[in-house]
Structures are given as C-alpha cells and as structure tokens.
C-alpha cells in the first residue's frame, strides 16, 4: 500500500512537471521573432556577404507554400559563389512544420547537386550543414562555422 502511494505521487509529479515544462516551452518559442533572430545570428557569426531574401522570393529557393509558413527568414550568400545560408521558419502546427522540414531537405539536395561540380571546395559546408527543429520552428544552417552558429541559435531556442 505504501509503495503504491509512492508510485502515484511520483507519477503525479512527473505529469505536473511535464505539463508545466511544456507550457513554458511553448510560451517561450512563440515569443521568438524569426526576423530579429536571423538578423542577430548573422551579425554574430562569420558569414560571407549575406543578404536578406525578400519573402516573395523565398519560394524561388525553397518551393514552400505560404500557407505552411507563419513567419520566415532566409539569408543567402549574395555573390552566388558560396552555399552559405541561414533559414528559419515558424509554422502554425506540427503537420505544416513537417512539410517545411521536407522542403529544407530538398533544398539541401539541390545545393549539393549545384556545388558538387561547381565549387567542390565549398562542399564541406554542406556536409557539415545542420537542420534543427524546435517545436514548429525549422532551422537550416550552411556555414563554415556551423557548430558556432548552432550555439548562437541555441541562445534563442532554449
């Protein structure tokens, strides 16, 4: 009897903790400003000549449907000579975020296909690229310092 009570108490506390942590997390992520975060990450990381792609033009690179995106930001290398890229998106729900995740994987494949013959020296950036997922946020990082960029990103997505 004594043991049963202890199990129930533990289970109860676990559920309470999970509910609170979930709520806290959700509240925190919903506060993230995608544009501002991208801007700050770019400013604090070593990217070569990056430009902020207009929302209307992002589709050209990611083939995403606007209905799957609540907020989005894309930085690419302006000169066209490097695959460096930072993509952050926020979707309304998990299902839409999953679709965006697939769009990112496709984008990565296209970049690999493009740079394999064109600039083989830059391929290491794609091999070390990172696709991150925080709730309904998707993040794609292509950089020679991708680990450093991930650390920078984690400051926002705790």
């Amino acid at each position, binding site marked *: 009897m004594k043991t049963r009570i202890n199990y129930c108490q533990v289970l109860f506390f676990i559920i309470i903790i999970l509910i609170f942590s979930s709520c806290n997390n959700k509240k925190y992520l919903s506060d993230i400003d995608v544009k501002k975060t991208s801007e700050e990450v770019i400013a604090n990381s070593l990217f*070569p*000549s990056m*430009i902020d792609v*207009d929302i209307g*033009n992002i*589709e*050209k690179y990611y083939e995403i449907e606007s209905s799957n995106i609540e907020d989005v930001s894309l930085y*690419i*290398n*302006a*000169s*066209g*000579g*490097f695959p460096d890229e930072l993509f952050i998106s926020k979707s309304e729900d998990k299902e839409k975020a999953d679709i965006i995740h697939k769009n990112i994987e496709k984008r990565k494949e296209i970049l690999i296909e*493009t*740079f394999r*013959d*064109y*600039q083989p020296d830059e391929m290491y950036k794609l091999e070390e690229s990172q696709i991150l997922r925080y709730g309904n946020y998707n993040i794609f990082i292509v950089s020679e310092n991708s680990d450093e960029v991930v650390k920078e990103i984690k400051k926002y997505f705790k």
Partner: protein
Amino acid sequence: MKKRFTKRSGIYDEVNKKWVIILLGLITFIFIIFTIISINYAVNQVEKDNFIGQNSSESSSSDISNSDNLPIEVSFIPTITEHDPVEYSYFTDAYFIGDSITVGLGNYSIINQSNIVADIGLNLQTIDTKKIINSPEGLVTALKSLQFKDPKKIYIMLGSNGISWQPSAVMVDKYSSFIDQIKAQHPLADIYISAIPPVTNAKQKSDARFANSKIDEYNLTLLEIAKEKKVYYLNSSILKDEYGNLIDLYAEKDGMHMKKEAYQALFEYYSRHTKKD
C-alpha cells in the same frame, strides 16, 4: 600701163600674201586654241560622266535595295561609345541571363530579381537543358522562360564556369548557337554580350585554369561573336586594376565572385553603354 598695173598687182600680191599669212596664222592659232579647249572639255566631260556614273550606280543599287526592302549593308560596330547614364527605367524591360555572377546582380538588388534569368553553376553546356526559372509551365530553361516575358533588351554573361575546363571552340559554338536562338525568339530585342569578369591576381596564381590572359582571350572571341551576330559587346575593364586583374576590393575571398561595390560599378558601366535609340 600694163607694167604699172603689173607692178601694182605685184604690190597687191605682196600685201595680200602678208595678210594671207597673218590670216592663216590666226586661223591656225584659233584652231589650236579651239582644239585645246575641246580636248579639255572632252576630258572634263569624261570625268564628269564617270562621277555621275558612279553616283547613279550607287543610287540605283540603293533604289533596288529600297524597292526590295533589303537592308543597306553597313559595317556593324558592336562596341558602344560611353554616354551619360540612362535612367533605371531603361532596365525595366531588360533581362539578364547568366551564372552565379548574374545571380549576384539580383541578390544585391542592383537589378530587380524578376529580371534575372540566372542560376549558380549555369554554363554553356547546360544553358539549353538546365531548368532554372519558375514559369506558368513550371520550371523551365533560361530560353524558354523568356517566352513568357517581353524583353526589349537581353544581357548575356556566360562562360565563367566553363573557362577552366571547356575548349574555347566548343564555347564559341555554343555561345553563337544560343545567340541565334535568342535572336529567333526575340528578333526586335537589343542583345548585349557581356565580357566575363577577370579574377584577382591571387586567384590566377593559385589556379592557372583561371588565368586572366585566358579570360581576355575568351572575351576577344565574344567580341568576334558580337560582330558576326550583330549584337552589342560590353567589356569588363571597369572591374580591372592597372594590371588587368579583378580589383581586390571588389572580390570575395575566392577571388572570382564579387562584392556589391563591383556590381554597382558594373551597373554604372551598363548604364553608360546602351544603344542609342
């Protein structure tokens, strides 16, 4: 009497003889003068006739040309003399075809993205086959995408991606064929061939396949294509330092791609070298 008469007639004969000689001399003189004048006139007339003949033959050929609506053959000069820069609006109906260098022109917002028909890694080998532009028919090639637009000017910059590995003769053939296709598709558009930019000295030293001497040689063949196809040619001198290399301040760290300042200079050059209407 008779003798007197004879004497008188002798005097008369003598006087007459003098006058006859003077008269004959005068006639001879007049004849000579007349002959000289006649010869002179005849020579002038022949020259005049020849001159009129030349003119009339030109005008007749011109008349024939005009009556047949054939263009009068005038040697075409593909280079353009610098003039005051045109307004940005000049470029609203201009489309830019190319590789990553041209991609940069749109990325840096020098030219509107919708006027950029370019893709990273595009080269003369893939220009006819690689589908790079979204269109009402989905993803299509550069050439096909122009079918959905109404370009009045078409700028082409191709070759940077092939210079290191493609034989020059193949590139020239491909380029010529591409120009032919564009001209067939848009016969009224002004076509500009842009020279490919140089690379930095560091780049050419580290990779001889990109030597600027090789790039210059290729650009000269582009000038020949421009002459042959009667399209305009824009050189890349604005991007060169005193040694003919890409200005270091304009270059990205790979020594080949360019920063915004380079595109601004290039656009300024384009604005000052347009066909005058």
